């Protein structure tokens, strides 16, 4: 650096968090649009919920949930960012509204458990991803689904069983990706790194 030139100011934590949340919100949106895995019966599933799990696991509870809030605000404002280009206010009026809204506490719980310590522990990442990414999301989604469709909770649970294998597969991918990323690029895991203990 030439003498006299001042070093550019390093980004504050707030600015860095905003950039990371925005980027992850966009990443979750993109994962919902990519060529999907065709499921038996022709209903395609996307990797969107993989993105939700990763948001919590990589960014931690607050920024992870914040990324999903950003995504939902833009969806409500009329952008087609949910799976297969769906979006708009209608996404929060249908029977799957509870699942989409459940992503917010879901990502929070994934982050809370996964990033409880640094270095990441495999069992914690598995517990967090399954608990937050699947159980919390289902717990938010099924009552809304049952209410909207006029079914009982047991019937709604039975329908959701069809999605469980796909979600477990995505949880497994999310766990593997989180640990690969923690080794390759640990900077974003700042929530866990600030509470370094085993």
């Amino acid at each position: 650096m030439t003498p006299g030139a001042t070093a550019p100011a390093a980004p504050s934590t707030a600015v860095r968090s905003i950039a990371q949340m925005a980027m992850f919100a966009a990443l979750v949106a993109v994962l919902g649009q990519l060529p999907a895995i065709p499921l038996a019966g022709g209903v395609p599933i996307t990797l969107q919920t993989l993105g939700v799990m990763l948001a919590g696991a990589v960014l931690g509870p607050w920024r992870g949930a914040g990324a999903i809030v950003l995504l939902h605000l833009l969806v409500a404002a009329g952008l087609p960012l949910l799976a297969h280009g769906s979006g708009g206010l209608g996404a929060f009026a249908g029977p799957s509204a509870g699942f989409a809204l459940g992503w917010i506490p879901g990502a929070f719980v994934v982050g809370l458990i996964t990033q409880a310590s640094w270095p990441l522990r495999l069992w914690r990442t598995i517990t967090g991803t399954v608990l937050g990414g699947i159980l919390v999301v289902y717990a938010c989604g099924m009552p809304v689904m049952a209410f909207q469709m006029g079914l009982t909770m047991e019937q709604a649970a039975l329908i959701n069983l069809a999605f469980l294998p796909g979600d477990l597969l995505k949880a497994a991918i999310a766990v593997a990706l989180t640990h690969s990323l923690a080794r390759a690029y640990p900077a974003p895991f700042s929530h866990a790194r600030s509470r370094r203990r085993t």
Partner: protein
Amino acid sequence: MIPLYRPGTSYLHRMPVGAKFLGIFLAALAASIFRENLGVLLGIWAVTLLGFRFSGIGLRGLVAQLWRLKWLVVVLTIPQLIFLTPAEAGFNVARVLAVVLLAALFTLTTATSDILSSFERVLRPLDPLLLRLGLSAERISLALSLTIRSVPVILSFYADIREAQRARGMRPAPRATVLPLLVMSLRHAEETAEALAARGVR
């Protein structure tokens, strides 16, 4: 990324965003509360159809919306027919579709930028409260516009990754695609944060 909004000059297009949102919210609430009431259901369908007719979106727009909802209809109808009588199933599907189409009407007749600016207007007075959480209306607006800008950036990252994989004869496995996508996106977030800091954003 094309917003779902359809420009127009109808009464629905010109209505204030808040009033339109409240009206649609109350109609959806009514449909959920009076769920067994045929009169309410027919009323909401009538409002929805009139809305589509007079907003200039018309029958073709309605059919296009229904086509977008095809997976919803499939996932909605099949379990209903297993668990409930056909009459109950028809009633439930009709109610859910009416509410979703009514909500779609809001999206179709309101510009995304108008929704975002009214959202910011609602947040502004809450600023003292938001500041305690380390947030502000300004920061939320910045995050929202950064997200919109980031979608095409990440799509181009994905295209680069797929091209590199094709050159090496790789098949698109989720793990091999998403890991580089994650690293590239997070690096880009860091560059964005530095660019913002250099422009004096704190």
